[in-house]
């Protein structure tokens, strides 16, 4: 079973990289981009076949390693 984890800086935490991308888009002529937030996607191939168990395990992975919950939020998608 595959899992996809999205990790984003929490709203309220300044994202300087997103800001830099927003500036670059503006200078390239893409008007009206009011905000850019940059995150990451982590894909996992799991041996687990039970969706509930997989979700619980990946959530634990997020809490312990994949995200830093002081500054980041995460979501888990199974496929």
């Amino acid at each position, binding site marked *: 079973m595959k899992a996809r984890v999205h990790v984003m800086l929490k709203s309220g*935490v*300044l994202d*300087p*990289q997103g800001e*830099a991308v927003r500036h670059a888009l503006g200078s390239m002529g893409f008007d009206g981009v009011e905000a850019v937030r940059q995150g990451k996607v982590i894909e996992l191939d799991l041996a687990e076949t039970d969706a509930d168990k997989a979700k619980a395990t990946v959530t634990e992975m997020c809490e312990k*390693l994949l995200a830093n919950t*002081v500054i980041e939020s995460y979501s888990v998608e199974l496929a």
Partner: protein
Amino acid sequence: MHAAVIVFPGSNCDRDLAVAFERAGARVSMVWHKNTDLPQGVDVVGVPGGFSYGDYLRCGAIAANSPICRSVIAHADKGGYVLGVCNGFQILTETGILPGALLRNAGLKYVCKPVGLKVATSDSAFTQGYAAGSTITVPIAHHDGNYYADAATLERLAAEDRIAFTYTENPNGSARDIAGILSENRRVLGMMPHPERMAEPLQGGTDGAALFTGVMGALERA
């Protein structure tokens, strides 16, 4: 006095940190990240700067979950002294030993230069050799040194006098100009600037040396 300096793949300030501890009178053991235990009788643990595990995922995240870090956490929990410099500070926040996190510098640039630091408190083994309010010069060299914590945590750090150093001119966007903070028991210090790079005259200054002699002095008196 026995200091242990942790060595991760990608650490690059471990030897400098060891020399600074040695010059302050410590016997130093270098401890590889795959070890599960610190040497017997270690008084102070140094977590060095560098790019542990290539800074993959987040700076310090993988190091914080390495075998030796469990022992470093246990050492801190028992009231042992820990100094984390630069990547070491990032690792200590990732373990949860120190609160907050280090974000990408607000200016997005890697900043490598000597900076002015205000000693915000002299109430710790690490900072007792400095006069509170005095200014020292110590180099920084980081890309992710922008200290972040939520408003309640920042308030608490200030109220408990746990901000150890602040920048005289904020180089990275850190909340409240924070360059270094102390744990609740004041025995764990995490800081982005490198005191070990300003610890003997050949390095261009000695403002960092008192930090190492300070903690050695506290251990001698204990």
